[in-house]
C-alpha cells in the first residue's frame, strides 16, 4: 500500500490508468447445444463481439469417397443416404443420375415422376427440420414440435413406399426400386391439402413477430459477390438476390413439366434466408401436387444387366439438394466399381462463408446466423 500515491487526506487511492481490454479466444467445441452437429468453432472475441472465427471440421469424416472405390454402384447407394441424412432421396437421385449419364441409360417416365415426388417431399421434410431447429436456437420452442408433426406424415408416406424413414436406399440406376403402393397417391394428396395452411401457421408464430424481426432483420448480411466467390449455392445464394435455380437453369429429370416460382430475397440477411426457405416449402408442395395429378403408368426401372459395368469415361451431374448444389463426379474404368467418385457437397462451401458473415456480431447472433445457413455436418465432412 505504501507505494500508491497519496492524496491530501492521506488516504491511499489507486490511479486508474487506461483500463485495457484484450481479445480472448473462446472455443465453441464440438459438443454444444447449438452447433448443428459436430462442428468446432474457434472464436476470437473482444468482449462479446466476435472479431474472427475459424471453423474446424472433420469430426464426422467417414471416407465415403474412398469406400466408393471398393463398392459396386448398387452397393454404394445406401452410403449416399448417409451423406446428407436429412434429405437422403436427393443424394440417391444424384448418384443414379451420374451413373445414368455415364452409361447413357434412359429412365422411364413413371420412374422420373416418382423420383420428383420423393425429392420434393424430402425437400419439405428437410426444410421442416431446419425451421424447427432455427426457431429452437432463437428460443421459440413450440414450432419445433409442429414441424416434426408434419414431418411424421411425410416420413410415413415414404416408409409406406420404401420401408425406411431416414436411410431410404430407394433409387436405383435406371429408376426406382419398388413401385408406389396403392394407398400412396390418395394419402399424398391428403397430405398436400393438409400442408398448405400449416406453412401459414408457422409464419403466424414467427415471420412478423417483433422479437423475431429484431433478432433476424439486418443480421448476418452476405453480399452477392462474396457468396459467388465462395461458391455458396442454394437458398443462401438465392437470398442474396441472384435467381439461380438449378431446376430452371438446367432442368434435369422432369422438372421442365412443372410450374413453380423461384423465391429470392432482397437484402440477404437472416430474415431473407428464412423467408426463402418458407417459400420453397410452398413451391415444393405445389410441385408435388402437380406431379401427383399427372403421373403416368409404366415401368419403374430401365432394364440393366445384372452385373452392371458402365463404359469407360467420366460424368458430372448436379442436383439441387435442399442446401445447395450437390455434384457427383464419377470416373469409371469399365468395371463394376467406380475408379473415383467425388462428391461436391453444398454445406462445405456454405460453412466456408461463415467467417465473412459474423465479424462484428455477438455470440447470440452467431447462433442465429449459423442456424440460418442450414449446414449439416455429415454433408461437410462426408
Amino acid at each position: 500500500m505504501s507505494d500508491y500515491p497519496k492524496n491530501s487526506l492521506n488516504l491511499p487511492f489507486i490511479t486508474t490508468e487506461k483500463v485495457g481490454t484484450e481479445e480472448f479466444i473462446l472455443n465453441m467445441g464440438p459438443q454444444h447445444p447449438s452447433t448443428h452437429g459436430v462442428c468446432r468453432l474457434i472464436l476470437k472475441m473482444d468482449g462479446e463481439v466476435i472479431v474472427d472465427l475459424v471453423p474446424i471440421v472433420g469430426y464426422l469424416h467417414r471416407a465415403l469417397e474412398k469406400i466408393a472405390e471398393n463398392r459396386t454402384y448398387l452397393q454404394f447407394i445406401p452410403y449416399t443416404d448417409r451423406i446428407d441424412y436429412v434429405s437422403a432421396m436427393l443424394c440417391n437421385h444424384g448418384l443414379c443420375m451420374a451413373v445414368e449419364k455415364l452409361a447413357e441409360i434412359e429412365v422411364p417416365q413413371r420412374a422420373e415422376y416418382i423420383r420428383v415426388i420423393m425429392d420434393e417431399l424430402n425437400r419439405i421434410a428437410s426444410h421442416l427440420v431446419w425451421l424447427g431447429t432455427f426457431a429452437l436456437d432463437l428460443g421459440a420452442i413450440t414450432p419445433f414440435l409442429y414441424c416434426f408433426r408434419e414431418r411424421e406424415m411425410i416420413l410415413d408416406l415414404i416408409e409406406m413406399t420404401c420401408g425406411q424413414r431416414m436411410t431410404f436406399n430407394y433409387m436405383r440406376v435406371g429408376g426406382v426400386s419398388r413401385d408406389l403402393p396403392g394407398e400412396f397417391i390418395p394419402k399424398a394428396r391428403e397430405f398436400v391439402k393438409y400442408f398448405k395452411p400449416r406453412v401459414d401457421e408457422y409464419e403466424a408464430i414467427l415471420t412478423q413477430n417483433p422479437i423475431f424481426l429484431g433478432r433476424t432483420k439486418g443480421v448476418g448480411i452476405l453480399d452477392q459477390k462474396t457468396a459467388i466467390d465462395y461458391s455458396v449455392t442454394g437458398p443462401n445464394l438465392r437470398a442474396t438476390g441472384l435467381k439461380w435455380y438449378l431446376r430452371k437453369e438446367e432442368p434435369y429429370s422432369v422438372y421442365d413439366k412443372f410450374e413453380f416460382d423461384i423465391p429470392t430475397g432482397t437484402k440477404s440477411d437472416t430474415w431473407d434466408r428464412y423467408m426463402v426457405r418458407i417459400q420453397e416449402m410452398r413451391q415444393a408442395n405445389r410441385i408435388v401436387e402437380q406431379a401427383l395429378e399427372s403421373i403416368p403408368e409404366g415401368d419403374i426401372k430401365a432394364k440393366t444387366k445384372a452385373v452392371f459395368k458402365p463404359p469407360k469415361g467420366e460424368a458430372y451431374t448436379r442436383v439441387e439438394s435442399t442446401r445447395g448444389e450437390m455434384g457427383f463426379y464419377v470416373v469409371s474404368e469399365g468395371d463394376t466399381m467406380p475408379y473415383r467418385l467425388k462428391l461436391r457437397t453444398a454445406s462445405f462451401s456454405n460453412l466456408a462463408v461463415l467467417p465473412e458473415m459474423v465479424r462484428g456480431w455477438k455470440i447470440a447472433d452467431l447462433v442465429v446466423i449459423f442456424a440460418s445457413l442450414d449446414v449439416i455436418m455429415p454433408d461437410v465432412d462426408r
Partner: protein
Amino acid sequence: MFELDKVFKAVYFWLEGLFTRWGIPQFWLDLLSMLLVFVVIIAFISVAVLFLVWWERKVAAHMQVRFGPMRTGWHGWRQTVIDAIKLIQKEDIVPLKVDRAVFVIAPIVVFVSALLVYVCIPFGRGLIVRDLNIGILYILAITTFTVVGLLMAGWGSNNKWSLLGGLRSAAQIVSYEVPLTLSVLGVVLLVGSLSMVEIVKSQAHFWDWYIVRQPIGFLVYLTAAIAEVNRTPFDIPEAEQELVAGYNTEYSGMKFAMFFFAEFTNLFTISAVATTLFLGGWHGPWLPSWIWFFIKTFGIILVIMWFKWTYPRVRVDQLMDFAWKFLLPLGFLNLMLTALFA
C-alpha cells in the same frame, strides 16, 4: 362458506386458552404462533411449487401437441415429487477452485429472498401474515435481493460462462425494477396507501379493478415482472443455446433444486402481486375469498406460461433497449395520465 381465517383464529384462541391455563407467558404463545404460521407458509409454497412445475410441463406439452409426464401417477402428477426426491439424494458437487463461501451461500440468498415476500401477500379475507402498512414497498425491496444471490452464484462458480450469465441477469433485473416500480406507483396513487389489504379493499367492484382503470400499467407490470423472474422472452441468463446454463452451470443436487424452487416461487409471487394490484385480490361472488385468489393467480400464471412457449428470446442489448427506451417512458406516461385524470 368455509372461511379459512376463522379456522386460523380458532386455533390461535384454543392455544391461548391452553397456555393461560398452564400459566405459560405470552411470549411463548407468540413464538409458537409465528412458528406455526411459518410452517403453514412453507408447506403451502412447497405444494404450490410442486403443482406449478407439473402444470407447466403439462401446459407446455399440450401446446406442443404432446402429452408431458404420463407414467407416474394419473397424468404424471407424482413426477415433481419424484424429481424432488431425486435431486435431494444427488451428490453435492463443489468444484475445487470455487470461492467456497460465496458458492455455498448463493442459493440460500436466492431462496430466502424468494420466501421472505410471503409475509405480505393477502391470500384471502383476513389471510395475510402481517398487514404491513408499507406492504407493496416491502415486496419490491425484497425481490431485489435476488440480484445479490445471482451475482454471487455467477462469481462463485469460477467459470467464464457462469460469470457472463450472472452479470447479464443482474443487469436485466436491475433495469426492469424501474418500470415495475412505476407501474405499481400508478395503482398506489389511486389507492392512497401502500398496504396490500387497503389496495384489495379498494377494488370491491368489478369496475374498480385496476386492470380496467390502469390498462397500460397492467401491461407494463406484466412485462417487467416476466423480465424480473427470467422467463422467456427474457430468459437470457438461462439461455441454454448460448451459455450452457448460465449461473446454474456448476450447481448440482440440492443447491440446484433451491435455484429451481426459487424461480417458481418468484413466479407465484409476481402473479399473486398482479392479482392483488390489478385483478381485485380476493373479491368475487359466492366462492370463498381464497379460492378466488387462487383462480386469479393461476390465470395470470397460465398467461405467463403461454408467453413462454410462444415467443423467441430477445438479445441482451435489445433487452436493455426495451427496458430503458420503451417501458420506462410508457411507465411515466401512465403515471402522468393517472395523476392528471384520477
